[in-house]
């Protein structure tokens, strides 16, 4: 047991130590470059594997929700299914529409994947495991996130397909609309932390009172912010029920209708990588990053906690996808501007009140009320305006 306690911190830092050890063999001049390449390679390998795993989990989870088995043929429990999918998409014919803008058509998926991977530079995956501890890390994250819109537009426009164009229009309108609440929802954390650096945000949450951690999600404003952030993140990553840009029953596959083979797979990859990145940001901002949920579990290596939280959020995404039908464009916009935006703005005030009120039960009470009341108000307003209700029916004779 003591041996374990001695080794756990070592295990926690095993990747950091390994990278230092590797770098020590290189001349000092090359070390920064090699360090960057090493980190990039690690991130790409880790998250591409997670992508493969998620496609499998998603199909299996959806299958189970629908009382099916899901993929179970390739390898044990269908474990090699993503591999088979990858080989399939690589060997498939790459079709480019004859009137398409070939250069832009080619660049769109590349830009999308590149942009979606860039966000990981500022995500602290474990203790001391961050690629660049930037002063303005959160800002960087949202800045590269906005690059994805451009990639989506390029894909939609260059295909010269009407469905692609409609999909691109939907996607851009949706991403721009939800970027506002996404950023505003995260501002409450920045207010509390007083920093844009992801490392210091996580460090602030990585302490405990008793066994309970100081995660921001365990405050009224933090909880509201987390829920709002997750809704906006769902919309940003085009997940159901906000998957309008690729709503297959309406506009085939949206902006990647005209993509096939490996380019299609790249879009798929980019989308999931983007989803992991936003989920990772949500974990960093609200769920304490790599910190353990209870103080007595702090011996478990930190990166495991990060991935455990990430997988939990992914599971929720899959669960929601398996349940809900898709929203319509105007409803999506209504939700963004009539509910999300006022709620996030109001949440800023709540966070301010929390900050300046003395700690205690009263603060909890006041802030919780301040969260619940506008939520009911705005939500009720949304519902009242549309006048939808469960109806009763009568029978003839």
């Amino acid at each position, binding site marked *: 047991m003591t041996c374990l306690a001695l080794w756990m911190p070592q295990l926690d830092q095993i990747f950091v130590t390994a990278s230092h050890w590797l770098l020590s063999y290189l001349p000092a001049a090359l070390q920064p470059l090699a360090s960057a390449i090493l980190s990039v390679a690690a991130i790409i390998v880790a998250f591409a594997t997670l992508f493969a795993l998620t496609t499998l989990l998603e199909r299996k989870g959806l299958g189970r*929700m*629908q009382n*099916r088995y899901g993929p*179970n043929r390739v390898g044990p429990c269908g474990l090699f299914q993503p591999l088979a999918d990858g080989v399939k998409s690589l060997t498939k014919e790459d079709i480019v529409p004859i009137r398409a803008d070939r250069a832009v058509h080619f660049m769109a998926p590349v830009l999308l994947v590149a942009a979606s991977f860039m966000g990981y530079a500022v995500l602290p995956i474990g203790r001391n495991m961050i690629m660049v501890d930037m002063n303005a890390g959160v800002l960087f994250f949202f800045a590269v996130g906005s690059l994805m819109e451009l990639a989506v537009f390029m894909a939609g426009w260059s295909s010269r397909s009407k469905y692609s164009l409609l999909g691109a229009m939907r996607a851009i309108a949706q991403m721009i609309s939800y970027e506002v609440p996404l950023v505003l929802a995260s501002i409450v954390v920045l207010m509390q932390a007083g920093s844009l650096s992801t490392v210091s945000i996580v460090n602030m949450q990585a302490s405990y009172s008793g066994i309970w951690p100081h995660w921001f999600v365990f405050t009224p404003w933090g909880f509201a912010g987390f829920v709002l952030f997750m809704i906006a993140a769902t919309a940003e990553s085009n997940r159901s029920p906000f998957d309008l840009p690729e709503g297959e029953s309406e506009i085939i596959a949206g902006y990647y209708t005209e993509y096939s083979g490996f380019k299609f797979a790249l879009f798929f990859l980019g989308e999931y990588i983007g989803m992991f990145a936003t989920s990772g940001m949500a974990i960093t901002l609200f769920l304490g990053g790599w910190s353990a949920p209870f103080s007595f579990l702090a011996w478990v290596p930190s990166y495991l906690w990060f991935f455990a939280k990430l997988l939990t959020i992914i599971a929720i995404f899959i*669960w929601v996808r*398996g*349940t*809900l039908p898709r929203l319509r464009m105007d409803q999506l916009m209504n939700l963004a501007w009539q509910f999300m935006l006022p709620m996030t703005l109001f949440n800023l005030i709540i966070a301010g009140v929390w900050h300046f009120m003395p700690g205690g039960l009263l603060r909890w009470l006041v802030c919780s009320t301040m969260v619940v009341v506008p939520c009911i108000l705005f*939500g*009720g307003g949304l519902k009242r305006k549309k006048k939808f209700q469960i109806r009763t029916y009568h029978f003839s004779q």
Partner: protein
Amino acid sequence: MVGEGILKGLAETARNFFGSYVSKDRLTTVQYPEQREPQIEATRDFPFLVYDGADWQQGMRCVACQICEKECPPKCIYIDKSKDKKPDAFGKSQFYPATFNIDISVCMSCQICVEVCPFDAIKMDVDYHLSSDNRFGGLMLNKQRLSKSNEYYNAIHPTEAAAVDAQRAEEKAKLDAKAKAAADAKAAADAKAAAESSLAQFAPNQSAAGDPQ
């Protein structure tokens, strides 16, 4: 409260998710090549020709009456009647199909041929493993491929086949009885004729009147 219905729906899918691990009868999927659904007795897909006994050519029930060819809605049966005759299961001398082809790429498994067949010669099969790499020839089944034994028929449709067999046995018994009666009558007539042969020269018309034919 907004979201109540959504949460209810989420609870429902979660129930199904965990339920699929707990109760196996939720999962209706059959893992096909390893696992098969039990054969439902009434199932039908494509027709086949029934033969009695061991030799398919000898025991073929079909007498090439061509009723099924006429009644088949998509006209997928092609029959050529034989020039000569052979004895059927009842011992009667009948025509037989020189060719009997069914194009099962056209057949729509309606089993009207089965219903109209007066000889119980054509029945519905249950074999659904029909893939062939030959698009035209592969699905054009000839007489030999169509012929299946009565035992096979009994195995795939036991109730129906038992009824058919009983009916045929009855018919055969009737025919046998008739034949026996005829034979008896003939024997009696022969005996009588033999007995009366001495008198035949005196009454030549009587034996002809006693013949049952």
